[in-house]
């Protein structure tokens, strides 16, 4: 008998993609998609149950279909359609509590996969440069999605204690990007001019949507030989990009603002509903966050197909050129080189351009 998988949050792109993908897995008999709203995209023949996970009705869905694997993706930072931050928080926290309560009652559930986020580590100057799964955060997130994620993880730990027979896998994703990402950070990168915090150049890590689907599939199936897929894992692409690199690769100029002004601009943007520029988002864009993915590779046995830089390149392609496309700038430099009748030595060991030259380079190239 194959698996019966229940996926929450299928009205979002990610949930929809996961449902469509695992339909094709031979081990999976049935897939049941759950969300409070109908999905705008097709689910590839999966059964859709309109149920609000904040209500006890979810327990009935679990029992009715004899679900044995629950994938909880409905932990997100952005509201779907109408509804503000309150509704998101309700769904994140109360929804998780209800779902876990239902799972605890259900005798059939054998596996639980939770989508969490690396924002549970917070971002602070006193933090170590790289977080491992066991690093205690120096400053707990004070609000917003990060706090939701911390609370969700707390409830999941309680559930894992009470139901030791259920394999629980918590996946802490770095910022998810890709052609159809709809995260606050993706919105931020779509701004024509990106406000940044003056004097800070955060290190960021991204994970590609395709990799998210793949790792969720690893987590919801039986573990392969030599790997273990229950526990908490950081999921991120290899490598690191700084925000200044991101802006240059996107070709979108930055507008460095002093920290208080950023907070103000953030709340202004939030008021007009343009992007979710929450305080924890600003902290991320101030101090940055990098996580260690050793556990993901060695214990979970997952190797992401996209590095952080490749993920970002894929995202950048999907968003169209910015105001200062890097190709144009590169061409301009080439033209200058041609005008001076010298070839730009690509890849050749770079001689020092003389202190004057390099310094102007630095100041013109730096957004901060």
């Amino acid at each position, binding site marked *: 008998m194959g698996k019966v998988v229940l996926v929450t949050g299928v009205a979002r792109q990610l949930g929809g993609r996961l449902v469509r993908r695992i339909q094709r897995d031979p081990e999976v008999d049935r897939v049941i998609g759950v969300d409070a709203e109908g999905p705008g995209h097709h689910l590839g023949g999966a059964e859709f149950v309109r149920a609000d996970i904040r209500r006890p009705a979810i327990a009935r869905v679990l029992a009715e279909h004899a679900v044995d694997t629950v994938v909880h993706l409905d932990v997100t930072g952005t509201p779907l359609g109408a509804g503000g931050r309150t509704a998101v928080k309700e769904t994140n926290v109360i929804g998780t509590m209800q779902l876990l309560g239902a799972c605890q009652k259900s005798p059939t559930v054998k596996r639980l996969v939770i989508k969490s986020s690396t924002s549970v580590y917070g971002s602070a*100057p*006193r*933090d*170590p*440069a*790289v977080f*491992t799964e066991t*690093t205690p955060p120096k400053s707990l997130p004070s609000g917003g999605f990060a706090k939701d994620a911390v609370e969700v993880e707390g409830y999941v730990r309680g559930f894992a204690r009470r139901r030791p027979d259920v394999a629980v896998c918590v996946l802490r994703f770095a910022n998810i990007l890709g052609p159809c990402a709809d995260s606050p950070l993706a919105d931020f990168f779509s701004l024509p001019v990106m406000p940044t*915090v*003056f*004097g*800070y*150049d955060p*290190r960021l890590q991204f994970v590609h949507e395709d990799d998210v689907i793949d790792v969720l599939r690893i987590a919801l199936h039986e573990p392969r030989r030599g790997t273990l897929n229950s526990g908490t894992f950081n999921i991120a692409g290899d*490598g*690191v*990009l*700084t925000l*200044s*690199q*991101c*802006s*240059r*690769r996107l070709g979108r100029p930055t507008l460095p603002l002093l*920290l208080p002004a950023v907070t103000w601009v953030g709340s202004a943007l939030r008021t007009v509903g343009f992007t979710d520029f929450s305080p924890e988002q600003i902290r991320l864009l101030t*101090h*940055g966050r*990098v996580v260690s993915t050793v556990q993901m590779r060695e214990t979970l046995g997952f190797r992401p197909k996209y590095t952080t830089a490749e993920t970002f390149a894929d995202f950048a392609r999907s968003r169209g050129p910015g105001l200062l496309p*890097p*190709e144009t*700038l*590169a061409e301009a*430099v*080439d033209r*200058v*080189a041609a005008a*001076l009748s*010298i*070839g*730009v*030595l*690509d890849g*050749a*060991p*770079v*001689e*020092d*351009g*003389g*202190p004057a*030259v*390099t*310094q102007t*380079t*630095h100041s*013109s*190239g730096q957004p*901060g």
Partner: protein
Amino acid sequence: MADAKVIPFDDDRSRGGGAQRPVRRRPASGGRRKADAAAVRDAALSPLPGPQTGEAGPGPDAGPAAPAEPVRGARSAASGASGDAGGAGDAQQDGAPVTAAGETPVTADGGWDRRIAGGLAFLRRRITGDYEVDEFGYDAELTDHVLMSMLRPMYQKYFRVEVKGIENIPSEGGALVVANHSGTVPLDGLMLQVAVHDNHPADRHLRLLAADLVFMLPVVNELARKAGHTLACAEDAERLLQRGEVVGVMPEGFKGIGKPFSERYKLQRFGRGGFVSTALRAGVPIVPCSIVGAEEIYPMIGNAKTLARLLGFPYFPVTPTFPWLGPLGAVPLPTKWTIQFGEPIPTDGYPPEAAEDPMLMFNLTDQVREQIQHTLYKLLVQRRSVFF
């Protein structure tokens, strides 16, 4: 003080006579250094400011080339650039007076072309974001080409840093460089970084561990991360050491850098000795390092504690010039520096559980501290004057 004249001055060296030249590069062997230095003592005791007025010959010629030339020479040799560039650098170092005077106009054209091309390639990579940073935010390219060039004049011309015992830093694998900390403003860390970068034969890059204050200040934190510094915590140190990096730490912390002038060259408590257990866990040698000269750059005669508390700093220095002269008072005194790397203390002989043994930790911490303190005293006795 014998070695004090061995100064990495390209133009000075070219005038100073033959004896100085071999020493200018990294000190490969102690014996040779001593001999050379003895010769130099007589040959080159002519005072430093002298050459400008004394030697009219190379003066005008060196004028246009001088600002860039030493930097380039050091760079091309240090980064092991392509044969051509390395050759040019070497030629300049060895055939100093003649080439400097005669060949400069000939090589300048080709040199400038290459340099502009290189600068444009660099510019191109920077503005398109086509460069790499590691997980700590270390931007090797920016550090090599910009940050180090900005620090180098201070290193070479202002503090005239002399480096001894660079061979004590292993050519490969991790090592923990433990240094004394002084000078009110952590210039000693930056100079230490330039010293390792410019002098080590294997092009090691020092990764410094900095206080959390550094990462709270805007601009400073950005530059610190790009220069490869990271927060002084056991996790980061261990991660760097396991990657085989040379890590620099100043365990005295604020107690050392913010101590009054009257206590100069008296080592403070070495934190809680966390650096020893980190080195032990990573199994890397500890290289004690003594820095002489940094204590006197800002003689701290007072500490405005209330102001410091108000600003959130651990101390607020009052020196004979600062804050009385305003920004002018913030100019450090041009002291002569010596950085000596001592014999490495191996830690790989201990069993893994040794890192949990507090007694052993205290003993090793004391051993490192004593060694640095003794070297400091020795260097101070040898020192002729604070400024020369």
